[in-house]
């Protein structure tokens, strides 16, 4: 397979929240920087750039992952979901609405990443305990809330989705 040279800009084409997008990247460009600087999708935030803080978490082919621990060239041909895709025609998605209702954010820097983790995880764990939610959230640092309202919002969404499924 061909080698992408460090000196050259390469075309990266992906699906971003259902829309085909493309941009240019040197091999060393992080996916987080590609999203923000090349595609202008600044909803994804950048914190620590070594996988600890969770601010840059996005979904790649549905799976929540750190955009700072992946190269833009690795995302070629993949389907990405970022926080910009959660609201439908200006109406907050259920996760976003629950975060607003429970005051689960203050400055909002960590929120985009947390929402993308929850979007993946709640699809797999439909009836989570508080302990499980806290374990999942351990991959995100929030310095405003103390986490309690975030946990409440996540549990509330899980409950509402179960009720909707049974209605």
């Amino acid at each position, binding site marked *: *397979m*061909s*080698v*992408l*040279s*460090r*000196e050259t800009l390469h075309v990266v084409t992906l699906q971003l929240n259902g829309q085909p997008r493309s941009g240019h990247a*040197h*091999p*060393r460009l*992080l996916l987080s*920087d590609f999203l923000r600087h090349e595609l202008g999708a600044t909803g994804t935030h950048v914190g620590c*750039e*070594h*996988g600890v803080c*969770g601010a840059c*978490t996005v979904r790649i082919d549905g*799976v*929540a*992952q*750190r955009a*700072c*621990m*992946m*190269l833009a*060239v*690795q995302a070629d041909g993949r389907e990405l979901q970022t926080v910009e895709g959660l609201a439908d025609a200006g109406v907050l998605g259920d996760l976003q609405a629950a975060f607003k209702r429970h005051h689960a954010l203050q400055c909002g820097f960590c929120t985009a990443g947390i929402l993308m*983790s929850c979007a*993946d*995880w709640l699809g*797999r764990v439909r009836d989570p305990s508080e302990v499980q939610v806290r*374990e*999942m959230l*351990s*991959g995100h640092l929030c310095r405003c809330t103390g986490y309690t309202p975030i946990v409440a919002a996540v549990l509330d969404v899980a409950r509402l989705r179960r009720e909707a499924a049974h209605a």
Partner: protein
Amino acid sequence: MKPATFDYQRADSAEVAVAALAELGGDARILAGGQSLMAVLNMRLAQPKRLLDISRSTALAEVRIDAGWLHIGAAATQASVEWRPRLAQELPLLALAFPHISHFQIRNRGTVAGSIAHADPSAELPLCLLALEGEVLLRSSKRRRTLEAAAFFTGMLTTARSDDEMIEAVRFPLARPGTGHGFEEFSMRHGDFAVCAVAAVADAKRLRIAVAGVADQAVARDFPVLGGSALVDALNEFAWSLEARDEPQASAALRRRLVRELGRRAAEKALATRSDRT
């Protein structure tokens, strides 16, 4: 922090990867999940000339049961093993250890083989591979060889892998009936690297205890089945033999104390969960 420059090559098969390693040796690095390597690159602790990306190889992502082993390909994510419906029966020790390994979001992309290749002395997967006497399958363009965990790990972040070799797969022996397991860890925060982690495996005749986070690599020791003060004495001697060092986050005395306490808890759980104990 951004990585230094490198060339990038997608290697969708082991053949492509080992051909590049034969040409470039230590100037090339395998990029699997990248959950250790990308952090190292971002901090410029490593500056390879070329990355060989195996993350999209379906052949290398295979996880299968093969003649009493769980065979885990080099590109298989930790999540692909963690979410196996029967993991608690197949490899109870891994089921106990996974919740301690970093975070959900990291396990989604990080690979089992990548953590073993990185060989961090505090990491859980190298510890489990050593405790369970698993094996590492290495491949170069010229040969294949299989190393037991104890022969693979050689020190702090170092292994017996040659520069022209890649890990093609790792394999863990499936739990034998009657075997019991225990896993205990202390870290500063949930998901952080362990200050001390202990894995214990027990059957009717043997108690095997392995410790990570104290020496420059995980260390395992076999004991006869012990309990009470004999276990306490054995763990105390084991703790001192690891030659713990004083570091800002934990003193040597704390680490010895953790080996004694977590070791006792893990051993007692392993002994208590043997199903054929007499």
